[in-house]
Structure formats: C-alpha cells, structure tokens
C-alpha cells in the first residue's frame, strides 16, 4: 500500500489547485477547504486565494487519506520489452514472411499531423526512425482531417493489417465520439477482426484505448519502435 510522499514516508502530501465560481473571502476559503476534505485530504491548507472577479482561484495542500494497493494493478504486457529496428524487421521476415501493411491518419476534424508523422514518417521522433523506414513495413499516411469512412476504405483498398489513428484535440471529448464512430463503422462493415486498430495522441492511454475497443493506445513520448513492436507481435499472435 502506498501513499503520496511529500518529504516523509506516508505523509500523503498532495498539491491541488482549482477555481470556484464565487468571490474570494473567508467563506470561499472555507468552501475550498471543505471541497478538499471531501476529496479525502486531511490537514488541508489553503495556501493561496486569489479573487478573479466573481471567481476565486485556490492553491491547497493536504494529506491524502487514500492509498493504493500496487498488487491490484495488473502489470502491463508491453512494459519494458521493446524490440530494435533490426529485430522488428527480422521478426516480420521470419514469422510473417511478408510485408506488413499499415494505414495511418488524423481523423475527424483533427489536423494535428506532427504526432502521427513522428510515428510514421522517415525522420521519426526523438532519434527513432519512423515506420516508413522499416523495409518490412508498407505504410500509407493519409494526413489530416480524414473521415473514418475514407480511412476504412483506404485500409481495405491496400489490404491493411493495421490502422493507426491519431487524435490530438480532446476538447469536449470530441475524440471519444470520433473513435467510437470508427469502431462502430468497422464493426458494421465486419472489418473489426481483420484489422489491428491502434490509437495514439497526447491524451491517449492504454486503458482508454481498451475501453473504446482498440487493440492498443499510445500516449506522449511514443516512438515508432513502441508501435512496431506491439504490432508485429500482435500479428504473429493472431496468425
């Protein structure tokens, strides 16, 4: 069982900030304190209160009552065992014996291509080459603002093994709507099982991806090797 650590084991120290839609004053301060208490903080300290005309901004510290049982958290599969560029190509040659076809796009209204490019284009990201550079991968980067329908069409057209979707704008959960639509379309057209569906973006994580029905999800700091490692293993598994 672990707790947040400020400067001593078990002190539970947490920093918090938020705005309440009321003017500053002793009452607002007390409201902030109570909210933090409801969140399970003891010894709540409202260390900063600033009036923003009708709103008040607070910074608080407190000691968290909750704790986390690490044993209850399943160890993620991917953790720590990434293949190298050569290993991946070798693995494809040996285990699959053919090129793997990958189609990627920023879908819906999303025009943020830098993340997907970082995974797919030659240049890659953070010193790690993109998928395009892998001799055993055949890639199609459809760019930005691609409709789900077009993406699936293209995937069928080129006989894709996997579809990579990038979603960067998450305001009002627009990405959830859009990703759900993709899954529904794929299922409706009976393509779901034929494709490995992967989603990535700065606010994506494995649990969200799984929840939405994707095979994997990749967040900030991902490089092509992470994706390729998962992809070729998963393909081999399905073979």
């Amino acid at each position, binding site marked *: 069982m672990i707790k947040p650590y400020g400067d001593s084991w078990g002190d539970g120290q947490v920093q918090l900030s*938020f705005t309440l839609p009321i003017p500053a004053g002793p009452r607002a301060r007390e409201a902030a304190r109570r909210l933090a208490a409801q969140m399970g903080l003891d010894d709540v300290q409202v260390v900063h209160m600033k009036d*923003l005309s009708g*709103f008040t901004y607070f910074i608080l510290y407190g000691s968290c009552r909750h704790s986390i049982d690490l044993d209850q958290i399943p160890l993620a599969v991917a953790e720590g065992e990434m293949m190298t560029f050569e290993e991946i190509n070798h693995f494809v040659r040996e285990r699959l014996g053919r090129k793997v076809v990958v189609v990627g796009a920023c879908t819906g209204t999303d025009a943020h291509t830098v993340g997907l490019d970082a995974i797919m284009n030659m240049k890659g990201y953070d010193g790690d080459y993109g998928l395009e550079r892998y001799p055993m991968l055949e890639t199609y980067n459809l760019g930005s*603002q691609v409709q789900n329908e077009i993406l699936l069409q293209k995937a069928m057209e080129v006989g894709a093994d996997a579809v990579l979707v990038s979603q960067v704008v998450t*305001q009002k959960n627009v990405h959830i709507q859009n990703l759900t639509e993709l899954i529904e379309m794929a299922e409706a057209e009976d393509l779901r099982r034929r494709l490995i569906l992967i989603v990535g973006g700065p606010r994506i994580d494995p649990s969200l991806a799984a929840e939405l029905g994707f095979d994997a999800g990749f967040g900030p700091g991902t490089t092509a090797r992470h994706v390729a490692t998962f992809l070729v293993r998963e393909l081999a598994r399905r073979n």
Partner: protein
Amino acid sequence: MMKEQLSLDQGKVRQARELAHSIALQVQEDIRKHTTVTIERTVARLFGIDGTDQDGIPLANILVDQVNRAGLLDRGIAFWLGNALVALGQAPQQIAERCAGDLRIGELPLQDPRKVEEVLALYTERALTAISKQRQRREEYKERLGVGEEPLKYVIVASGNIFEDVKQAQAAARQGADIIAVIRTTAQSLLDYVPYGTTTEGFGGTYATQANFQVMRSALDEVSEEVGRYIQLVNYCSGLCMPEIAAMGALERLDMMLNDAMYGILFRDINMDRTFADQYFSRMINAYAGIIINTGEDNYLTTADAFEKAHTVLASNLINEQMGLKAGLKPWQLGLGHAFELDPKMRNGFLYELATAQTIRQVFPEAPLKYMPPTKHMTGDIFMGHVQNAMFNLASVLTGQSIHLLGMLTEAIHTPHLADRILSLENAHYVMENARDLAGEISFRPDGIIQQRSEAVLDQVVCFLQEIAGKGLKRSISEGYFADIKRPLQGGKGRDGVLRKGLDYQNPFMTKMGQELGVDHD
C-alpha cells in the same frame, strides 16, 4: 523607443525587401485574375444581406451559389444584385430571401446600366460609411481610454461557448489583459460558409459568427470602461471565408484579425489561388477598417525546426509585408508574427531567440509585431511550462515586441482554463514590469553570439528569397519551402470556388476602397 541593439547590414535588408516585393508582384498577377465565392458573398454581405434560410444556410451563400450555378458569377455578384435592386425595387435582404425561394436573379431583365451603377454606389457608400463609423469609434475609444503598455498582453478564450467566453474575457481584462482573441472551433476554417447567430457548442474554440462578434465586442466595451483601457478584440480572418469574416469584423469593430497570406494553403490545405485572392480582398477590408492584421509565421516553427528554419519566418514576414502593403494596409497595421519555439534544451537558446526577435524588430520598426509563445515544446509539466513562458515574457520586453500572446502553462493539455490565463497574466506582468527598461540598458557584443546569429539568419533570408523569387511563390510552396509542408499547385480545398473574372467583372467595394486606400490593383 526601439533600440538598435544589433547592427544590421541595411544593404541586405533592402535587398531582401526588394526580393519580397518582386515575389508579391508575381502573385498579384494571379490575384488580379480571380474572384472567389467568398469574395462575392462578402460583397453580398456588405450590401446588407444577413441571416439564413430555414435550413440554416446563409442567404449570402444561397444567392452566390445560385448565380454561380447559372454560370454568371464571373461578372461579380454586385452586378446581379444591383440589377435586381433596380428591377425589383426591393432591399438586398428581401431579394436574397426571395432567392432562397424561387427567384433567379440571373434571369431578371437587364436594367439601365446608369441606374444600376447609381444604386450600387449608394449601397457601397452605405456599407463603407458603417465601417468608417466603427473605425472612428475605435479611434475615439483608444484616444479616450488608451490601450495598455507594450508588449500588449493578448490572451485567448476558447471555451466553445460565447457566453462562457465573455465571463473569461472580462475576468482576463480585469486582471490585465489588453487584447482578447476568441479562438475558432476546430475545422470552422474549412466550412465554406459562416455560421449564424450566437453559439454555445464548439471544440477547442467558439464559432466565429457576426452575432458572437457583437456579443463579445459589447462585453469588452463594457469592461474597457471599467478598467479604463480599451480592450481590443481579435478573431480569425482565414480559412474558406476570409473576406466575409473581414467584413463582419469591420462592421462589428473587431480590432485585429489573424490574416495571413499563406496560412490557409500550408496549414489547412486550401487551394493557392483561392487563398491568394481571398487574402487580398480581406486585407483591403481590414486596411479600410483600420484593423491590425496578425500573420501566422509562428505556425512554421510548430512543424519545422525552429533553429534551422528561423529564416523562413523573417522571409515570410517580408512577403506578408509586401502583400499587405499591396492590399492597402499601412505599416502600423502589419502585426507580423514570429514565435519563441526553440527547443528549451538548447544551450544558449535564449541568445538565439533574442537574435531573431531583435532582428525582426529592427527590420520592421513600425510594425506592431506579434510575438507568439512556446507551444511545441510545452509539455504536461505545467511548472516548467510556466518558466518557459517567463523567459518568453522576458525576451519580449527585452526586444520591444508589440503584441504579446501570452503562453499558457497548460498549453499541452487544454485550451486555457479561467485560472490558467490569470496565472499567465501575473507571470507576464511581473516579468515585464521587473525588467521594464532592461532593453535600454544593455547592448550586445559586436562580435558576439547574438550578433553573429542575426547576421547568419539575414544571409539565409536573402538566399531563400532569391530562390523563391526565381521559382515563384506558388512553386516554392509546392516544394515545401515553408513549414516543411508541400502543397500541390492545383490541389487543395475550395478550389472550385475560384473563378476567373470576366472582362465585365465588377466589385464596387474593391474599386472604391482601392481608390481611398491608394491601392493599385496590379
């Protein structure tokens, strides 16, 4: 006020500017030949056509599409409207409403050309007077209340809901913001129409509509009185409806407009001819309305490397300047953009940043330069982000920038929360006040890193512009000269909305404003 901290080779600056001028002239040839559906809709709007049909389609679109489908738009919507006005004796709005029904204005009998011209002159005058009045009111406000101290603090609101935006904009003004930009919802730029009415649902931004402009401008007028400072309002004059938005902004007294010559091509994959034509007309309107434009060079550095491609920013500034001047903008209206986007891990990055910021400052001494904050290298580490913004704030006050878009500590996370904006305002206020006169205190070593970097960038700019002048701007863009992005010469969105002007093409606004602005259309 500006200090010449760097010694620039004025010969090279002149050479670069002449190259940009010749580049602009080449593009101008294409611009002259084309009109677009949005230019024509703008004319319709300026004639007073507003509102939508039952399906929510703007009447301006209905009217222009009808004439376009009939193959008659190459003469300009003004002619057909003028003709209808004389033929039917009704106001433009009524005519447009009837077009949503079964009226086909292209089929009306042609009227006495003198009468048509008269009525066109009348409506043109009326629209331009409305715009001039707003311009005057702005000047009165600025005169009476003043604006803040430069660098002016510019923040964005982007809740998606104009009424939430209002609360946040007013709170920001009370905490020291000088300029409020209402960010547009994602993908509005690709709509080939302007939505109508007040709106409360947007993603990553709020719809740009005339009603929303009005709501926000009047909220800001109110708070301007309260804080004793005229708070300026900004929106986006880009995408497929550039000139329409310019017209709306001119009528609703926006004060600044994002309005770049190439942004749509590069970042929204909009057709080149469309963009060049649209930006030209929209800039004339902005020029006439006394609006300051903000160009978008900062965007280059989000896709290309900010150190290697620093020269593309200055080169593009020069092109934007020349194209802006061609459209009648005055130097004080050219909010040329650049950005603090160097990798924070770079040793001496701050020195390189000072070099380019100061160079741009000195190349455009009269321009209200717009300096953009770190965005690409912002991460979820809001504390580090806040410090990056502090260094940006310092660079800005140190190099005498004019319009300062505040960086948000949550840049990598969400569009700004109410409190994020306030934290950023406090950050900027502290840093800028604390180092207020530092610029006047220091000089850079004549053979130092900063001076050398400035020289290197200027050299690159000259070479780069030489190449572009050789190839032409359109081909250069198609080869990826800007932002590492390539766009096909003939491709892009909105292409079918571009028309070659007929010999009898008529656009009374372009003509009239052109005269008043002293613009030479070739």
